[in-house]
């Protein structure tokens, strides 16, 4: 390796570190905020008397905000939304990738366009509807509305995934004597596993972080962490330390999920995301 090349390598690493400074600094700052007592929030920058009180307050459901319940709600609602989208979206993605049936292109595109529809279009009608149907502030209601977030993503990406998978594998299974359903479950599905894992993670994160839907469509029963974390800002003083602590606590599930499927994440998106 020439000196010049090595130097370039270092430069590249330095550039990378620079980006990650930008990417990680706010998170580091959130950690610092979360460890600060409320009265030192603005008085100092890096020297303070660290305390876990912030976390205690958040997890101890004091301040009148049942954050632990919101946390459980978020889990139920996000997992539920992703699972439902997978159950419904995988067959749809598969069908539209395997059969060029009438209107499939338009159908898929319309489905995708929901992903990009402004939430405000539906929020008022949906509120009225939910009140009528008794879905307001329920898990079912949230899981339903989060389909707007998760379903198009899953269908769109998984569809390209299935399209990239040669149909001959399932055809081989058919000739081996398996039914179409068995061919899908035993052959196609295991092969797209990395894609399913990666896209589920993304869908989970987007569902988990959604703000407007839970804000308007839930109250105490089904409220989620994002709205919950913001609640700490109100009151006598803006308690950024509690908001930061709550936000960091709510990063834990997606983070754990991401670490579990780390080995699939990049690979999983590698051929899925492309073909339209």
């Amino acid at each position, binding site marked *: 390796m020439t000196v010049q090349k090595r130097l370039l390598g270092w430069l590249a690493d330095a550039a990378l570190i620079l980006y990650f400074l930008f990417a990680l600094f706010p998170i580091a700052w959130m950690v610092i905020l979360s460890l600060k007592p*409320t*009265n*030192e*929030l*603005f*008085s100092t920058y890096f020297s303070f008397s660290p305390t876990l009180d912030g976390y205690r307050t958040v997890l101890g459901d004091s*301040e*009148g*905000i049942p954050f632990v319940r919101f946390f459980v709600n978020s889990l139920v609602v996000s997992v539920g939304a992703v699972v439902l989208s997978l159950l419904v979206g995988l067959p749809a993605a598969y069908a539209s990738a395997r059969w060029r049936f009438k209107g499939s292109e338009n159908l898929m595109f319309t489905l995708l366009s929901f992903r990009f529809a402004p939430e405000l279009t539906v*929020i*008022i*009608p949906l*509120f*009225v*509807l939910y*009140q*009528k149907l008794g879905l*307001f502030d329920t898990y079912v209601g949230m899981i339903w509305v989060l389909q707007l977030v998760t379903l198009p993503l899953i269908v769109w990406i998984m569809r390209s995934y299935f399209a990239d998978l040669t149909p001959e594998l399932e055809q081989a299974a058919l000739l081996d004597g398996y039914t179409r359903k068995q061919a899908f479950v035993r052959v196609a599905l295991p092969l797209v596993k990395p894609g399913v894992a990666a896209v589920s993670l993304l869908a989970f994160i987007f569902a988990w972080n959604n703000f407007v839907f839970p*804000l*308007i469509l839930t*109250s*105490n029963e089904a*409220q989620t962490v994002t*709205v919950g974390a*913001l*609640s*700490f*800002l*109100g*009151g*006598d*003083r*803006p308690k950024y330390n509690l908001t930061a602590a709550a936000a960091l606590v709510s990063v834990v599930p997606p983070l754990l999920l991401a670490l579990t499927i780390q080995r699939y994440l990049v690979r999983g998106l590698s051929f899925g995301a492309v073909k339209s």
Partner: protein
Amino acid sequence: MDTHVHDRRRFLALTAAAAATPLLAACGAGFGGDDSKSDGSAADDVTGSFDWKREKGTTVKALLNKHPYTDALIADLKSFTEKTGIKVEYDVFPEDNYFDKLTVDLSSGRASYDVFMLGAYMVWQYGPPGWLEDLGPWMRNSAATGTEWDQADFFPNLLQADQWSLKAGAPLGQGGQYALPWGWETNVVAYNTDVFKKLGLKPAETFDELREISGAIKEKAPGAGFDGMYGIAVRGSRSWATIHPGFMTMYARNGLKDFTVSGGKLTPAMNSPEAVAFTEDWAGMVKQGGPPSWTSYTWYQCSSDLGAKKAGMLFDADTAAYFQAVKGASPASGKIAFHPGPKGPDGSLATNMWIWSLGMNAKSKKKSASWLFLQWATGKEHLLRSAITHNHIDPVRKSIADAAAYKDKMRHLPGFIETFETVVDQTKIQFTPQAQFFDATTSWASALQEIYGGSGAKSVLDDLAGDLAGKVG
């Protein structure tokens, strides 16, 4: 709808057919005039002698904003349930989004919440569509209201602030009582005593002095050991909430009006020559002595800057300063004093205010129980307890403002009680009531930002007035 419209609708066949029912239901139930006004108040159904236990076993749902008053209320709910046998279920939402939540909820015409917190300005928005229960009949019905509630004990201007005849431009204090004052904030100047002492300053008595002092602090304080300190913190974000505290107070003290009313017609007055001059001065004050990045300033930034010793003064709600001033709350604790703020040219201390009020959903099916709750929450017993053991300050009741225990509690804050007592009688809603309040004040805030950014005050305010004339008039 006529047949022509029907034809027109056919092309929408699918959505329309599916959609029609809920929409009409929503309109009918949410905004229908006929069902709410037909025959008197539900308060008339309450007869006999007053009884706290009348609605035993009922559950009332409350929507609450995250606030110290709320904390005090929640802490005391047990005693309400003990007293009445009524259970209270509540949802608490963050302040930034509280009114979005409430607005959507009320507009749906559903009674998901029986009672909720609101400000006096919200009465102007929620009242006309008929979402708010007129509490007058309840207050006047001795079978529904116990004598100890003592209506006369409220500061009259507060009670009046929640009364309105639902007609744009009609003065407050007439018509229905659409909410009850519960806790409030008057807008005054709080200042850092350290920096005032060090620089030899005295609280401003006129607006010119205020501007001068603001500039002086920003210029001199950083050199005098107050790192990064500027003169005066006032709100500046592009929000209706920017207008009502310091700005509207000073505006009113200068004898200025937002609208002029004649013959039931509202004319925007923010572009009167005097208003233009004042607005220019205000923007100039912010530029010379205000916070950096002022256009992002909400009360979070304003109050935390005062607490962090970055702001020499705060012209905002007295409570915002109070929560930074109490012991151990911030680096500036113990160094914050209160002052009524500059007087107008004619010596006016007209002050604008924010009232956290409690209202009742007109669609509530548990009005009697809800009224008991409102009565208790605005009653002497609870308010005194929460003023003393919690932080329910700026009492809406004279008896509490005068209570020795309360005064003792507030005494350590220099000037707090004096300031309160000075301005309380001149504090009222300084805006002209009208349903487009939020649109008007949001545009107003945007106009302020533009002027601050260097646009000519006259043309910006003329545009604003022109725009609002169409919407409000």
